[in-house]
């Protein structure tokens, strides 16, 4: 039974292709010590086989997105380095999206994330701080200044950081609480910084990130959903709120691209706040419903 639901859900998430590398990943994971400053514990008891399989599938999802992130970032970086401004701009949000899907796992590697995804307002000197590098530094030049000049080094660093992130994800065990908690952590990220449109201030591509966070959250939820059969009301409510968010977002999407964030009406922003908050509240109970802690 568990094998059949697992394959169904994997098909749903579009992940079948990467199952092959999974044993290898697990082997690598066993050999690495947990992160030094993480208090999350691995459950003392045995996980049920179903939960174990679902968590493996979540891990596969994360690894697949990390691979995709490296691939798209490479294409974006190449466009920047060869001075193809229009192409670089069109690839910017697309490259970030797989990363936005797995942000809570990436956050385990704070040193890399602080280079790749730091925003100018984390620095007192704002845009002038030499430590302001990564995606948003490139975003500033491409969209606000309209140039690729002088970006080669920052772009290459971004590409190598994306690869390092992928390697470290492969080599690190992710605790079940962290993995399941990712579903709500992604929603928290929307509630804290995406809903305000402060993330992509030069490109106005915030809705891409928004969509990425929602997809990543939902992917984890969908993989765990078969284990929540006794909570039909809960599952239906969560599904409904994902759908409400997707409905609003879909109105701003055309031909594979999202409208700039400033097109989002204040009415629609509020229409997103409701289901986002409800998702955050509901998904914060997911770990307990799975008896993980």
């Amino acid at each position: 039974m568990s094998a059949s639901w697992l394959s169904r859900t994997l098909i749903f998430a579009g992940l079948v292709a990467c199952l092959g590398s999974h044993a290898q990943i697990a082997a690598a994971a066993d050999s690495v010590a947990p992160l030094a400053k993480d208090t999350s514990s691995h459950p003392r008891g045995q996980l049920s086989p179903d939960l174990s399989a679902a968590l493996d599938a979540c891990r596969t999802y994360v690894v697949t997105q990390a691979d995709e992130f490296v691939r798209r970032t490479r294409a974006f970086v190449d466009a920047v380095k060869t001075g193809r401004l229009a192409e670089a701009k069109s690839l910017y949000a697309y490259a970030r999206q797989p990363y936005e899907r797995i942000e809570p796992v990436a956050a385990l590697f704070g040193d890399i994330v602080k280079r790749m995804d730091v925003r100018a307002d984390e620095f007192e000197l704002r845009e002038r701080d030499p430590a302001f590098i990564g995606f948003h530094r490139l975003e500033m030049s491409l969209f606000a200044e309209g140039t690729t000049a002088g970006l080669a080094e920052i772009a290459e660093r971004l590409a190598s950081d994306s690869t390092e992130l992928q390697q470290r994800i492969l080599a690190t065990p992710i605790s079940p609480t962290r993995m399941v908690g990712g579903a709500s952590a992604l929603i928290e990220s929307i509630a804290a910084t995406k809903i305000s449109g402060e993330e992509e201030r030069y490109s106005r591509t915030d809705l891409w990130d928004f969509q990425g966070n929602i997809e990543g959250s939902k992917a984890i939820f969908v993989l765990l959903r078969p284990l929540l059969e006794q909570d039909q009301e809960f599952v239906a409510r969560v599904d409904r709120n994902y759908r409400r968010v997707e409905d609003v977002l879909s109105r701003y999407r055309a031909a594979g691209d999202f409208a700039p964030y400033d097109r989002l009406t204040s009415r629609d922003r509020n229409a997103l706040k409701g289901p986002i908050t409800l998702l955050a509240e509901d998904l914060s109970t997911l770990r307990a419903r799975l008896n993980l802690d």
Partner: protein
Amino acid sequence: MTNRSRHLPGQIKLSRRHVLGVLGATSFAGYAGADDRTPSAGSDGTLEAQPFFGLHQSGIVTAQPAAALYCAFDVLAERPIELERLLRIVTERLGFLTKGGEPPATNPQLPPRGSGILGPVVFPDNLTATLSVGASLFDYRFGLATRRPLHLGAMERFQNDALDPSRCHGDLMLQLCSNTAETNIHALRDVIKNTAGLAAVRWKIEGFLPPHIVKTMGADTVRNMLGFKDGTANLDARNAALMDRYVWVGPERGEPAWTVGGSYQVVRIIRTMVERWDRTPLAEQEAIIGRHKGSGAPLGQTHDREDPGYEADPDGQRISLAAHIRLANPRLPETRDNLILRRSYNYSQGISASGQLDMGLLFVCYQADLVAGFVTVQNRLSGEQLEEYIRPVGGGYFFALPGIPDAGRYLGQSLLEAV
């Protein structure tokens, strides 16, 4: 209702807090008796006063009253003689405000001398005013560069910081603490009005503590915006020997002579992401902090003041090695030099661009050695799991000036006259 104009400044009594402070200097034993901690019947605290003159400034080892205000200033004065004038004015005003009294009458055709928000007679209300200097005061303007305290620099960025330049640093920092927000605001407006042209407000933040906890005089511990008791294991500010070791700069430290009797002050505005925190499982909250949320006891213990017992838990089975309290103070012989005197408040001010609450901890600490104290502690905390829920957004490093003995001296005089 009390008719405040009845009370003349000479009748203002020394507060219980001050009495306790003096007792604490000689008797090391725990807490004062319950009678000393209970406000006397009918007292509303408005006439209680803290000393303004002394070896050290008040407001550092003084028990914390319920309301605090921190205001950083840029000095507009351009010459040393103007800086001296500024400091003389500030000293005179703070001396008056902390003591209280009736301001001189003014011609009604002119604006009043003060804001009047405390009424016609100013009452002390336990006000302490503590003046500190920032690293920028030691730049080229006043010829003070060679007199800078050894460790005083601009506050650096730690890895989780998102420092907003409009809420950082300053030439001067004025800490005002009293029983009520109005008393602090009254003092601030008085200082601003009287220093026109010499100093400009750079940033300001206000903090609060629950009055019912404050009234227990340390018997109960305040909770922060995360809902956890914060400050349980703080240094006992009534223990003069501890303060001499950890808080006050003494002659043995190799600092410029003028600094003796002062203290390094750290102010940090630490926003807490409370909506997200409130959606975090209780067990995880407790694992991140290292304490039980209800009792405040270290995990696995019963009482909030119990020792966490790390030596019996070397692998962090009970209290994770990454728990906030364990990283902040590992209680090892080699970390004893890193102890600091914390004097934090809670704050709450408006909302973020996303519509989430902007509230958190107005973290303040004092230490004799900034690097051995706050900087070392903060470096140990860097990367802690709590960082997912907190964001330091402002603040600065300052040096709290030594106290002055009487009205014949002004705050900062030893600095300006040092050779």
